[in-house]
């Protein structure tokens, strides 16, 4: 048999596309998700640059001015102490976003580690670890967080840790399910056969392959964390004056909403639009990364 020369032109070959390129091209077609992404990036840039671009100081009071409706000098109006509301919302977004990202990172670390270990080792360890998650699931966490703020005082660090400690449960469940599905595949067997250590397999080979669901769920965790922080600040249990977060701004706004509705409307709008953006992005990512469940 003679091997025929094949007309083989590398340049004419269709370039292979990775899963991620594929997902990103699908995401780009989703206008809502891309809109959400752009809005979030813009918000993050504004929040980072706030100390340099904020038009006024967030705590400096101007009692002579008092509460004024939106104007050319104060785009979002001023509060009863004459503080510029745009500035306060910008500083609030630093806090809200920071809580959102840090607490989600805490949840991510605990949840992924817990879920990977439980799913990979399996058996009795898995049963025990997931039973623990089930028990925690049944507890009234919002109430425990309030309890913690009462006992240990109101600190930002506590807020981060407490919220992160609540949100890791679902992450652990999702990761565990995915790990169970992956661990019997050939490339894991190959790694075992090559004599790789267990922790190395878990975090080098198993965890990265669960990245899709983790990314999706992370994007959906951030809004619920931001919401929880605003909820606590609204009740007066989160961020303390003179600092402001969206929740505490809304709570001030509610007190005076009949006379000065703009004090409620602008922070409420900012919070809701951020939640919209994050949810749209999360939904878009889910459709993009997991084509099977997307749009029926």
């Amino acid at each position, binding site marked *: 048999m003679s091997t025929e020369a094949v007309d083989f032109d590398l340049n004419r070959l269709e370039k292979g596309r990775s899963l991620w390129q594929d997902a990103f091209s699908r995401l780009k077609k989703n206008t809502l998700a891309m809109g959400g992404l752009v809005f979030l990036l813009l918000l993050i840039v504004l929040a980072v640059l706030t100390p340099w671009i904020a038009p006024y100081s967030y705590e400096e009071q101007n009692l002579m001015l008092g509460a004024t409706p939106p104007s050319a000098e104060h785009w979002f109006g001023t509060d009863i102490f004459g503080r510029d509301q745009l500035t306060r919302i910008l500083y609030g977004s630093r806090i809200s976003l920071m809580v959102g990202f840090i607490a989600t990172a805490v949840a991510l670390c605990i949840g992924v580690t817990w879920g990977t270990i439980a799913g990979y080792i399996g058996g009795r360890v898995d049963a025990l670890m997931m039973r623990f998650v089930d028990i925690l699931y049944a507890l009234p966490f919002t109430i425990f967080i309030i309890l913690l703020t009462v006992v240990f005082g109101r600190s930002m660090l506590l807020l981060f840790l407490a919220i992160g400690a609540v949100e890791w449960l679902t992450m652990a469940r999702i990761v565990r399910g995915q790990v169970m599905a992956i661990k019997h595949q050939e490339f894991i067997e190959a790694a075992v056969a090559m004599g790789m250590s267990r922790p190395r397999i878990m975090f080098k080979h198993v965890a990265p392959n669960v990245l899709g669901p983790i990314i999706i769920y992370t994007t959906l965790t951030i809004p619920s964390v931001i919401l929880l922080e605003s909820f606590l600040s609204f009740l*007066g249990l989160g961020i303390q004056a003179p600092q402001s977060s969206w929740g505490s701004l809304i709570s001030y706004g509610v007190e005076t909403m009949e006379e000065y509705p703009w004090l409620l409307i602008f922070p409420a709008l900012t919070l809701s639009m951020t939640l919209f953006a994050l949810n749209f992005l999360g939904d878009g990512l889910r459709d993009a990364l997991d084509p099977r469940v997307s749009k029926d």
Partner: protein
Amino acid sequence: MLRIFLQRCLSAIPVLFLVVLFTFILIRLAPGGPFDDERAVPPQVLENLNKRYHLDDPIHVQFFDYVKHLLQGDFGPSFKYPSRTVTEVIYAGIPVTLELSLYAFLVALVFGITSGVIASLKPNTLQDYVPMSAAMIGICLPSFVLGPLLILVFGIQLDWLPVSGWGVTPGDKILPSITLGAGYAAYLARLSRGGMLETLSQDYIRTARAKGLSGWRVVFHHALRGALAPVVSFAGPAVAGLLSGSFVVETIYQIPGLGRFYLQAAFNRDYTMILGMTILFAFLIIICNLLADLLLLWLNPKLRGRK
């Protein structure tokens, strides 16, 4: 079947015990005694107070005393208001909070499932997009934004409904119930739409249609039952969310329920009050999760095989 039911019920008991233990220890860890005040209390008085509330006993004795009283439905005295007990406050608040949560849950069920089913019947058409967009708005408008907005529009601008109190003026229960239920209606709409879409693509639905059953009969009799499993498993956590959501709604609408008392106790650092109410909330939520679990077992016989 009965055995599984009993097993589930029994497994809730250690969880409850752990909750009581954990809360009790946490409260005891709190810096400062319950009688720390701005003005100094004479040591003799402090000692008497400690004796009256049995704070001079060893901690494990205090704990078992507390559990013993709990089992008799007694939550002990309030530290801040010597004239009333925690039990009295709880009995005053609990009917209000439960009623509010119940109405909100009904709002969520009726609006959520209806719009989810309607959306699922014609996916990716206007009939799908309109209710699902509404659901997205419901998820992104937290109750502390929705509540004030409803007050502004229906209470102040239009002056249709009262905006504070509970059971005082007619119609004052409408806005709080909607405020608390809206977010859950939105979640339920998305869940029931997803469940319906999955069920409607199953073979037995095609069989039912092939047999010539009417569209509505297929939807209600065959599809809905299968589609509601995710809704039921969401119901347990939803009740937990409703109970803690009542904190905000009761504050906004000035409703004298448990949530408002709990916040007052938190600000006053009234430790026994917080302890009692945390345990009560935990109890309610664990019971609700248990009920949802049992309902799920009853609806889906396939789950019964598993432990």
